[in-house]
């Protein structure tokens, strides 16, 4: 058994050609993203999400009717055609079944 205490240091500085390419590519990729891009992206994302949500809450606030069960068109749908929620036609037209996607082939 040899006791080469410098083995670790030597290894860490040795890069194969392949490894060199990989480190180089990662460096280039990191450089391609400007400093602070991610934080900036998330901050800006928050701003436009909030603005668009506010638009929808405004639509709610100005609506003449604000609850689904009092939508006159919905009442008309059920009385003219759909029967009642969870009724026969609803079961046929408005509900579905799900698929276990781990068992497809």
């Amino acid at each position, binding site marked *: 058994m040899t006791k080469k205490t410098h083995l670790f240091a030597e290894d860490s500085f040795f890069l194969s050609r392949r490894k060199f390419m990989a480190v180089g590519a990662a460096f280039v990729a990191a450089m391609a993203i400007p400093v602070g891009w991610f934080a900036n992206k998330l901050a800006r994302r928050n701003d436009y999400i909030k603005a668009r*949500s506010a638009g929808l809450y405004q639509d709610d606030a100005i609506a003449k009717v604000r609850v*689904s069960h009092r939508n006159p068109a919905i009442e008309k749908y059920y009385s003219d055609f759909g029967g009642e929620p969870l009724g026969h036609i609803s079961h046929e037209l408005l509900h579905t079944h799900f698929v276990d*996607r781990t068992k497809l082939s």
Partner: protein
Amino acid sequence: MTATTYQAGEIQGLIEIDASKCKGCDACKKFCPTQAIVGASGAAHSIVKDRCLSCGQCMINCPFGAIKETHSALDRVIRKLADKDTTVVGIIAPAVRVAIGEEFGLGTGELVTGKLYGAMNKAGFKIFDCNFAADLTIMEEGSEFIHRLHATVKGEEHAGALPQFTSCCPAWVRYLEGNFPSLLPHLSTAKSPQQMAGTVAKTYGAKVYDMEPEKIFTIAVMPCTAKKVEASRPEFNSAWHYNHEHGAHAAEYPDVDAVLTTREMAQLLKLLKIDLATTPAYDGDSLFAQYTGAGTIFGTTGGVMEAALRTAHKVLTDTEMAKLDLEPVRGLEGVKEADVTLFDKQLGQEVTVKVAVVHDMGNNIEPILRDVAAGTSPYHFIEVMNCAGGCVNGGGQPVQGTGSSWIGNIG
């Protein structure tokens, strides 16, 4: 055959990375809810299509504009609009009306419902607001929740599973189907508003429009790329089944014929030289343009839950909620929760309904699902949306400036 996560006929590989533009910067991986993007840093990435939910979050957040959609219905839609023998019905999702204006120089979040109706009417669409279908979804999904709650409280044998999950978001539904199939009984069986709208347009709608269902072409305008995959699911042909049973003989057709994203609808209007910004407001042309405040907030995180509780409260107590705004489920916190205590007339006792709202699914859903699987979840009703902020930030919305806009500066 090798295992797949797609049913026959479903759109596969909707989202794709253009290897020649990808710099391998890994930004997309931070936005992917299912770790579907692979490739070493610095090398061109690719998407594992069996894991991909088609949510498009990677696409709207790629700094190099290197990610694209492989399916566009734009050409088909243009042909159908020109066909005098076809009635083209445009199904407009809630979140589109607060974002499409951005493509025409209007402010972010500006509400343009009337202008959008006007522009689409000019282009030849009949207006079917998906918000009407959102109201319909509340009636069905809310009733289902009350049914499950009552059956559970009474200890009935085949009471549906609680907590009940919402089923509006196609990326979330696909995630559960592929990753936690044992929890599928918890998912509401109500179709999403898009699919309800398509089905209603071709059944009851055919009577309202007074025409043959097979001459109706339904186009959903969605803030979402995953809605394209949802519309292609083979089981979504209920209108054809229904009409067939009632004596029609037409060849099979889907409930929703085509899906355009918000971006593609803007593109269509520009191709037709219709400037949304200067189009006068229009009210719509049938009862399908009538919707409520509850229907419209579906487009943002917490909205489905808020809308559902407004109606559940009325059904359970026979009185309207004193204050309709449900503040605890609004805002951008990853997991939001609320308790509503009410006197249930039918049960004759006080009930506390505990609800949770989850968005930015990739970062927030797993602990919730582990609790549900273990039977320790404290909630009765859980809303889940894949995208951070809900549909307003969907993968089909206008891309905000952090896309490829700055790339010119670094050559």
